[in-house]
Each structure stands twice: as C-alpha cells, then as structure tokens.
C-alpha cells in the first residue's frame, strides 16, 4: 500500500439544472479515502449520496455539472482528463456496482460473454479470457461457474446477479470500488452473503471502497470510516465505531434514534422521529442546514453556517454545539398509554389454508396448510425470504386470490367467503391493506380528497356532510392536514403518500389491516413516523395487523405474534418474544443471524447456502433440509416434521426436539439490529 489517497474530493460542488436554474446538490464536499480503506457514506434519500458516486467517474446526468472543486483518483485529477484518458481511468482504476444488478447486466448476452468482454478490452482474448472469467466467478464464490457462464442474467437469482456484477467490477483489479446500495434490493439472507463476500474480497484485494447506503447497520458492518451526508454537505465524519456509538451531530443522533433497536417494542415506547424535511435541492441555506429540524438550534445556528469542527482522532462535526449533540431532546415523546393485555376471542382464525398455482402443469404450492389466529389489537408479523408465501397469504385473507378448497378463514367467528366478490360489505371493509408502494397503490389521476372520499363512501357508507366531517377526522388521524386534500399523490413525499394509503385502509373502521412492507420504500426517519402512526392507530382502534416485512427489527417493534414462513409453510409460530429470544427454528436462527447489527457485536454467524428452492419443486421431507445448518440426518430428507408445540402457543416445525434446540442455541443471544 502506498500513501497516496485512493480518492480525494476537494470542495466538490455539483449542481443539477432544473428549469433554467442551477440547483446545488453537493456543496463544497471534502472527502478523502485512503488506499485500502472502506469508507461509508450514509444519509437519507435526496442528500446527494449517489451524486458523489456519479461525479467520481464523471457520469453525471446531462443536466448535472461540477460547479467547483476537484476530484482526484489515485492522485490523478479526474476533472482535467480528456475523453480517452477518462475512458481509460474508468476502465482501469475505478469500478461501480449499482443497486439493481438486473439492470446492470445486459439481458441479451450470456454471463460468460459479458465477463470475457472486459478482458478483451484489455487485450486478452480467446481461451485466456475464458479462463480469467471463470477465475473471477470462482473468486466471488459462485458455485458451478462453468454453467453460470452459459446462462443469461434472468436465469440467475438477484444474489447471483449481484455477485456477477461484483465479479465484473473486480475484473480489471480496480484501485477504487464504488458500491452504491449494493444490497438494498436483496433478501436479508442474501444480503448477508453478499456483504460477507465483499468483506472477504477486501482482504484479498487492495481496492479502496466507497460504500453508499441508507442502511446504517450495513455501513457499520462494512466500513472503517463513515461520513454522514446532509443536504449535500458532510455533517459528520469519523471512524465507524465512534460515529455510531458516540455521534457528535444532532442529525446523526436523530437518525440513529429512528431505528427500532435492541428489541424495542411498541408497548415500550414510540420511536423517535426527525421533524420536517430535507432542504430541497438548490435551496438557499443560511446557517446550519439542519437547524430547521433540530431542537437544539439557536439563533446562531440559523445565521452562522457551522464549519466542520475538528474533534481530534479524525473526527469532524458540522455543528456549533457538537459537544451537546447527544442531549438532543426527542422529537416524539416516548411514552405510550399502557395497554391492558387482552383476553378477547380471536378476531381472525385461519385453519389449514392452502393455495396452489398451476404453473406449466406443475402445481406450485404457494401457501401450504397455514393456520394462525389473532386477537383484536394484536399484530401478526410475517417473516421469510421473498418467495416464502407471505404476500400470497395476505392476498388470500383479503380475498384477492381464492384459496384451494378446504381450509377456512373466520373473521370474528364468521366464515369468510374465499372470493372477495362473495363477501358481504361488512366483511370487505373489515379486512383492508396498506400496500408496499404508495405510488402504485394510490391512483395518480385522483386527488387525495377523491381517493379518501371514495373510500369513505364505499367503506364507511357515508355521504354529504357526514362524509366531509369524517374525512377531516380521518385526515387528522393520520396527521395530514386539509391542505393535502386538494393535491395529487405525486405532489406528496413518500411518507405522506403512505399516510394517505393508511387513511384509506382505515376509512371503514377495519378489524384487520394487512401491512405489506409499508415502510420498505421509506427513509428511516419517515419509517419511524409511519411505525409510530400504525402503533397509535392500533392502540386507539383495537385493530389487528398482519405485518409483512423483511426488516426483523421493524417486525419485532410492531408484532405480538410472529409466523416464520418458508416455501409457503409455517416453520415457526408464536409470541414475538418467544420467537425472537429462542430457542428457535434453525431457519429463524439463520434469518436473525443474517441481519447486520449496528453495534458490530459479531455473534457467531449462520449463513444459508444457496438459494431458496423453487416452490414448484420443493425438497422432500423437511423443505428446509437443503439449506439447514442443523440438519440431523436422513429423517430430514424423508419425513416432513409436524408443527409441534414447544411451549404454550409457540410451535416449531423441526425434527430436533425443543430441548435440544435450546442446548444448541444456548451460547449466544441473537438480537436484531
């Protein structure tokens, strides 16, 4: 390693031209990544993270321009390179891995062709290029690389595609590797594998890494140093451990508080939130950019832009009161009304629910023999990798797809018709949903007033004056204002759109609301506000939730019961605390272990090998045996275990006896982030 800095940004300013005006996105950004270092850049969407990555390789969109400062890669000024030199620099010294590997790979070329192409550009052809490509795939630990070379990108899973993208990025042995949200679209288990891979490769290669992510835990897991970006400015920088354990900027403090941590649950208090919004791009900022959202802000903060204070040991903070940052008062009071434990009869009782899709003659069992029950005011968390049947189960409850014959869904003791069309009006309004993506869930041609008014009319059976009154009430209950009624969904931010979607679900006083990953598209501060809102509405209206999420911290915060699904089967079902604290099913154990932790405590890790098998051709015996780290023998391959009650209300589908699981899993405690 040399003393040269792998990347050096000096006073970098970037602007996007929107409507004949240059709007500043990055403001005098100074950032240095030393050779061999992994640097994490975090911040909410819109703060300029990706713009940093694009500027480094000068790939800014057409309306973007570098308005000041300099960028040096390996000591070489990128700004002065001519087109050919820039092309060489991109080819030789810097590589990027993007969020969506499906878009980064060419869909009409075989993997082998795409990989050898890189070597051909470097002047290596024929068999030699083939061999090198194979070696690259081996390096990213793809099993059976020879057959992967022959495949097209769509024939690979998301995790495999991202490995191939990483292999391509590493092919020319770059000195700088830029990873822009490389694991955001992946399942937790796959994410863990890809992160492990990147960590291993770091040890083998000399490349410096710029790791961009909104996920603080992932960055904490991967990086030596971290910079927090806010409104295009670096507001805090330091070693990862210091920044996350001892933040010195109110923004970092607030961001960390938004995450449900250490097994926090809804009845133990609400999450903190960050009031207000990120300044829009190009906004004029006098004083501190965060002052409007900061409870510590004084007159000085509003008028005098804080410099980056040096706090020693390489720590920087752009706050006048960095020594007091951690005394930032909560924006949201933590206390919650005490909820008395309920003994009401179940509001939902599902028995032996099955759903089989016919797929080219092969029956595909999306949901198999699922039974759950849920009491009023409780939340059932559904967890599992994609393809585990979570969403299909939710759609069965809603009646959007009809289940197979046999099996039953009972709502407050009355049987629900399998099809939505044959359910009564009361039953329809009793089971509603908050979709994952509000852009798809809200009709973009309709105003918020129309969307909510229609829901109140159809679900609440209201008209005229009563409807208007109820509309105002509904809007207030999700903390929107009358002003939001006149606009179309696109004029609202993601968090506000999700509030509208929640209001719509609550229009007819539902008994059960399915929440299908309602916060996965949102920033952490907005996520916290939405989770608080859901928890508040629940305690006020005694509604039950079916909460689907791949973020186990979020699921744990909101859920009273957890069902762990794998290939459409419930592997474990029980009270949230029991499922999280264990002993748990080996699959649950692996899921929990895959979650990156913010505090960097390295519990012994369990990694699942390979991909989730196809539901059209599930493994014999226990469906999890192909990936199970605790497989005990042939019985796992031949006989499907029953869901057996381990403790009262806590059932596990495993051949390993409960006491044995307890003994095996004893030495460590696994906590989600």
């Amino acid at each position, binding site marked *: 390693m040399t003393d040269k800095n792998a990347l050096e940004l000096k006073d970098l300013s970037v602007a996007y031209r929107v409507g004949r005006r240059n709007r500043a996105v990055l403001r005098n950004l100074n950032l240095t990544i030393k050779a061999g270092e992994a640097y994490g850049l975090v911040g909410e969407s819109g703060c300029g993270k990706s713009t940093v990555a694009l500027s480094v390789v000068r790939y800014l969109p057409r309306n973007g321009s570098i308005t000041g400062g300099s960028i040096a890669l390996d000591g070489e000024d990128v700004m002065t390179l001519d087109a050919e030199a820039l092309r060489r620099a991109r080819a030789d010294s810097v590589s990027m891995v993007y969020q969506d590997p499906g878009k980064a790979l060419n869909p009409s070329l075989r993997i082998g062709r795409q990989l050898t192409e890189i070597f051909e550009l470097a002047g290596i052809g024929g068999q030699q290029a083939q061999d090198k490509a194979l070696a690259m795939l081996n390096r990213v630990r793809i099993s059976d690389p020879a057959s992967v070379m022959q495949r097209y990108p769509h024939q690979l899973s998301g995790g495999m595609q991202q490995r191939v993208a990483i292999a391509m990025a590493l092919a020319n042995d770059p000195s700088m590797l830029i990873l822009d949200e490389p694991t955001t679209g992946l399942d937790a288990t796959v994410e863990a594998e890809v992160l492990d891979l990147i960590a291993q490769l770091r040890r083998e290669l000399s490349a410096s890494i710029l790791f961009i992510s909104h996920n603080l835990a992932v960055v904490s897991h991967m990086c030596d140093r971290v910079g927090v970006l806010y409104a295009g400015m670096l507001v805090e920088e330091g070693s990862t451990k210091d920044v996350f354990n001892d933040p010195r900027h109110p923004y970092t403090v607030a961001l960390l508080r938004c995450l449900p941590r250490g097994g926090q649950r809804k009845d133990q208090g*609400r999450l903190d939130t960050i009031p207000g919004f990120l300044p*829009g791009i190009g906004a004029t900022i006098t004083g501190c950019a965060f002052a409007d959202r900061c409870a510590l802000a004084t007159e000085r903060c509003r008028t005098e832009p804080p410099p980056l204070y040096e706090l020693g040991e390489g720590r920087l903070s752009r706050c006048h009161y960095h020594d007091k940052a951690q005394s930032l008062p909560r924006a949201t009071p933590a206390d919650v009304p005490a909820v008395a434990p309920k003994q009401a009869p179940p509001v939902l009782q599902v028995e032996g629910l099955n759903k089989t899709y016919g797929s080219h003659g092969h029956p595909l069992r999306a949901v198999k023999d699922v039974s759950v029950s849920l009491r009023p005011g409780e939340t059932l968390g559904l967890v599992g990798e994609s393809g585990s049947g979570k969403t299909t189960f939710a759609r069965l409850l809603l009646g959007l797809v009809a289940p197979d014959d046999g099996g039953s869904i009972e709502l407050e003791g009355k049987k629900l018709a399998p099809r939505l069309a044959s359910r009564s009006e009361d039953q329809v309004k009793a089971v509603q949903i908050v979709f994952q993506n509000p852009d798809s*869930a809200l009709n*973009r041609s309709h105003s918020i007033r129309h969307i909510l008014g229609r829901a109140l009319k159809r679900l609440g059976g209201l008209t005229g004056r009563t409807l208007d009154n109820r509309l105002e009430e509904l809007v207030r209950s999700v903390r929107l204002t009358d002003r939001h009624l006149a606009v179309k969904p696109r004029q609202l931010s993601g968090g506000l759109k999700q509030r509208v979607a929640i209001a719509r679900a609550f229009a007819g006083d539902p008994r059960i609301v399915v929440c299908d990953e309602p916060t996965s598209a949102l920033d952490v501060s907005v996520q916290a506000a939405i989770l608080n809102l859901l928890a508040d509405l629940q305690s006020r209206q005694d509604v039950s939730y079916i909460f689907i999420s791949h973020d186990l911290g979020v699921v744990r915060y909101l859920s009273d019961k957890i069902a762990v699904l794998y290939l459409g089967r419930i592997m474990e079902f029980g009270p949230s605390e029991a499922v999280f604290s264990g002993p748990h099913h080996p699959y649950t154990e692996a899921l929990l272990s895959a979650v990156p932790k913010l505090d960097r405590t390295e519990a012994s890790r369990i990694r699942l090998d390979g991909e989730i098998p196809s539901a059209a051709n599930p493994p014999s015996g226990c469906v999890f045996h192909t990936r199970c780290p605790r497989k005990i023998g042939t019985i796992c391959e031949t006989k499907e275990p029953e869901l057996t009650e381990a403790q009262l209300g806590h059932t596990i589908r495993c051949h390993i006896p409960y006491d044995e699981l307890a003994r095996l899993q004893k030495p460590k405690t696994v906590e989600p982030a």
Partner: protein
Amino acid sequence: MSATDTAKLPAPAAAPDTAPRSPWGEVLHSLSRSGTFLTGLAIVVFWIVCALFGQYFVPYDPLASDIINALTPPSADHWFGTDQLGRDVFSRVIVGSRDILTVAPLATILATIAGTALGLLIGYFRGIVDDIVSRVLEAFMAIPVVIIALLAIVALGTSKITVIVVIGLSFAPIIARTVRSAVLAERELDYVAAAKLRHEGALHTMFVEILPNVIPPILVETTVRLGYAIFAVATLSFMGFGIQPPSPDWGLSISSNYGMIGGGFWWTVLFDALAIASLVIGVNLVADGVHGAFND
C-alpha cells in the same frame, strides 16, 4: 404524539423544486418547445382556417364553371390554373379541405370512443373475453380498410355518415389494441386491487380508476389515426365512394381530373395531391410531437 413530524410543516408541494408542473403542464411545456409539433400544428391550423374562412378570401367561386377558360395553365389570373370546367384550381384547393376536415376527425373520434371502450373491456376482463374479441379484431385488421369500406358503402349507400361510420369502425380495433396493452399494465397496479377491496363495480374501475391513467397512449394513437383517416377519406373520395360532387374535395377533384394528366394538364391534379400530402404530413408531425411529449 408525533404531530411535529410532518403535519405542521409545509408539504413538499410547497417547495418549488419538488413539485414543478402538473403532468399535463409538463406535456404542454414540452409541446410548446417541440419544433416538430409546432410545424405540424401550423400546417393543420392553416388548413382549418382555409376550411372555415377560405370562401371569403378566395379569388373565384370554387364551384363556378367558366368553360371558355377551361384548362388554362397557371397564370397571374389563375395561380394554379383552371380545370376542365374552367373552375379556378387555387380557389378549389383552398376550400377543398372543408369536407375532409369534418369527415376524418369525426371518424377518428368515433374510432377512439369505440376503441377505448373495447380496449378497456378486453384489457380489464382478459381471459376468454379477451381471447375471442382479440382474435376477431385481428381478423378484421387483416382486411384492408378500403375493401371493408367499399363493401359497407355499397351495402349502405354513399353518404358522409356512412364514410364516418365505416372508417371509424375499421380504425377502432387498432385503438382497442393500444388501449388494451396499456390497461393490461395498469390493472396490475395496487390501486386497482384497492378498488376491488371497496367492492367497486367493473365499470367504475374501468372508467373512473383506469381510464384517466391510459389517456396519454390514447391521445397519441388518436393523432396517428387522424392522419390515416384523412388518407382513407381521400382514397374513398377518389374512388367515388366518399365525398360526392359538387364538393371541391381534393380526392374527388383528383379523381375527376386525373384523366387529363396524359394531356399535359398536370396542374389539375398536382395541387390537390400536394394539399392532401401536406395535411397528412401536418397531422403526422403533430402526432410525432405528441408522442415525444408523452414519452420523454
């Protein structure tokens, strides 16, 4: 509780950089800067003005024959010459757009309405409805429009209404197909599922929920079809099945004069032909512009 987190603060809608124009404003803005669109629009507006007011400024009565001055070549008196009955070709070309500019747009509107309704229906219900209707539409589209039109006109008799209905109905399947594919994508969005979860009827879902979101492709297809409709009307008139004499219609004029070309009387045909071409080109430029504005 967390009343502070968003409610009190201005919505992003208030910030100028997060909510620029409405989607339609965006499209209008893009159109106003599109040379293609503006050129096309200028041509089309020119012919519309001619159709509406041409009779007041043309130098001669387009229908008045003057046998003595028949077939005079272009001159200062008769800019485009005269035809075999001595009628002034320039005057006839200027007002000749009147019929085609009523018949073709009306046919296109009919095609759009019928095609949109049909497309929504088959796109929304899919399944057996789609299978049957789509095959029928495809079979229908395999036959050239002119042949269908000729058969229908022979059966129904010649009139402007017949031409409108025939062209309208033969273009409807093409629009239906465009609408269908847009609806297929749209119906998978969650707001359609949300409508089902309110027990909305199929008609409400199709026309109130989905239709407003598929307007852009419909508009594009409609402008493209208008170009073809003009061409179809001119063709039918040329063959004697469209607009009837004594209208100075372009297609009709070409049909009654093209026998003269052999005699060297090219001016009796050329200017009408150029007029048809310019109108079709104008409409196509507009269509290109609209397409560009929606797909940028």
